[in-house]
């Protein structure tokens, strides 16, 4: 039935879209504050997912691995910012770009050394058999529902923290106008570290959520990073809400490509994502929801 098929593709698109949204948000958090595009975001997520799989293997508890991965993401984000990113601030923008690419290569190399290069399967928190309404399969599983809920809850919690807490206001002020923030007594450098830590958390979340369907290997997050980056560009790298919408749009679009593309459909998704990226950059380089218009007032 075409209607059921359409529904299935849409729902599964939303699930993957939420994961892209998490990566996109992590990129936006860093870009907004420091104008750095963190090419290592996927690599960091891959690394924390390896940490999760080791913890799960040794403790037998999925949730121990889940929590440790998120904590590791926070620590990894903060440590990367403090050690290799901070020295590039007030330097030409290309320096930070090169450093994050170097960081990606380093993390992928270390993962190969520590954890091996072979494909490893990553467990899911809940059943991955498809849910049904009556006899009609929905194309999504209990775990997919968890994926959507986890990203949604994290995103809303972050949004509330940014809007309603003092640290959130400090971070926004530092991101929008570092000079004013410093002159007002805000420790801007520390806020940027917090931004990287939160980005690390989001990346780690995306890593453990996506890995059950992709396997885990040192390059496993490369494609997810490209999708997340595309989502962030669709939404405008400045806009957290745009990142979420961009992630969902891209997830659904790619799901249709994979679903309706016939036998070659799933091979086309990366190509289509890159095509969308190029088209958005050509037509609307500020993204669909960019805040830069406000800034130019």
């Amino acid at each position, binding site marked *: 039935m075409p209607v059921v098929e359409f529904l299935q593709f849409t729902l599964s698109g939303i699930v993957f879209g939420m994961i892209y949204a998490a990566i996109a948000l992590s990129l936006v958090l860093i870009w907004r504050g420091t104008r750095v595009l963190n090419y290592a975001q996927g690599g960091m997520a891959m690394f924390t997912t390896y940490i999760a799989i080791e913890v799960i293997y040794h403790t037998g508890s999925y949730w121990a691995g889940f929590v440790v991965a998120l904590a590791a993401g926070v620590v990894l984000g903060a440590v990367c910012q403090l050690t290799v990113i901070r020295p590039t601030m007030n330097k030409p923008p290309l320096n930070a770009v090169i450093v994050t690419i170097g960081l990606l290569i380093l993390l992928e190399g270390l993962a190969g050394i520590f954890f091996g290069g072979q494909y490893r399967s990553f467990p899911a928190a809940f059943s991955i058999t498809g849910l049904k309404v009556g006899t009609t399969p929905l194309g999504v599983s209990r775990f997919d529902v968890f994926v959507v809920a986890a990203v949604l809850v994290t995103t809303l919690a972050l949004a509330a923290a940014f809007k309603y807490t*003092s640290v959130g*206001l*400090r971070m*926004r*002020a530092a991101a*929008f*106008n570092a*000079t*004013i*923030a*410093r*002159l*007002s*007594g*805000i*420790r*801007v450098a520390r806020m940027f570290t917090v931004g990287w830590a939160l980005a690390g958390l989001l990346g780690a979340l995306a890593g453990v959520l996506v890995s059950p369907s992709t396997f885990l290997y040192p390059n496993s997050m490369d494609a997810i990073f490209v999708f997340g980056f595309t989502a962030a560009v669709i939404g405008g790298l400045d806009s957290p809400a745009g990142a979420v919408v961009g992630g969902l749009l891209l997830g659904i679009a790619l799901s249709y490509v994979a679903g309706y593309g016939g036998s070659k459909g799933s091979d086309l998704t990366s190509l289509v994502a890159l095509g969308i990226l190029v088209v958005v950059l050509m037509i609307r380089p500020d993204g669909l929801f960019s*805040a830069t218009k*406000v*800034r130019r*007032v």
Partner: protein
Amino acid sequence: MSSAAAQQDGSPALAVDGLDAGYGGVIALDGVSISARPAAITAVLGANGAGKTTLLRAISGMIKPRRGRVLLGGADLTGRSPEQIVRAGIAHVPEGQGVIPELTVEENLRVGMMSWPGALSRASAHRNSRAERAAALDEAYERFQPLADRRRKLAATLSGGERQMLVIARALLARPRVLLLDEPSLGLAPRIMAQVMDLVVRLSREHGLTIVLVEQNARSALAIADHGVVLNLGRVVASSDAQTLAADVALRHHYLGF
């Protein structure tokens, strides 16, 4: 209190002593010394590129001076970070773009209180500071009524005059002893500009704030200032009370353009 005490023994609230500063190979300040009397307005004048903005940036720690000292009521602040200097009691309102347009009016004001101590200290202290912050906000809204009506609006929606009002209100919320104002009249209509100048006068006369006012518009700055300093190519070329400077035709013609 401290400024009143300082006034009695005639010592300056803010003193800059032999300051050298620059950007890369460019020397922007060359042995600049100024002193700002407590509760008075000190105007810093001069042409574009004379070093006025650099002087304020060096005082507030945005750039590190290469030589010389910055003293606030006798305490040496030289080389401290902007975050520390605003806590020590110097608020700097930089030129242009002083509001954060993406934040609401109220959020902009709350940013002004980020230098207050104890935001993360014990719960009871936190509660007290919450009430104190709310009271300080109310006070700001009382003084700047137009901001109260727009507290939930984005600062991007404010007019030029309202923005300047917001920026000054935010600086005052840091509870400074010394206020550094960089071209507060820039881009404002003459009537609005007069209002801003009135406000600056009231802040010093009624609230005892020590003000260092950088202005391109020397005529209106000297009209409200107690003291004036003229910079040219990074050096102090004149320093005197405002009337004397305004009466010096040669100086006006040479350096002040009126």
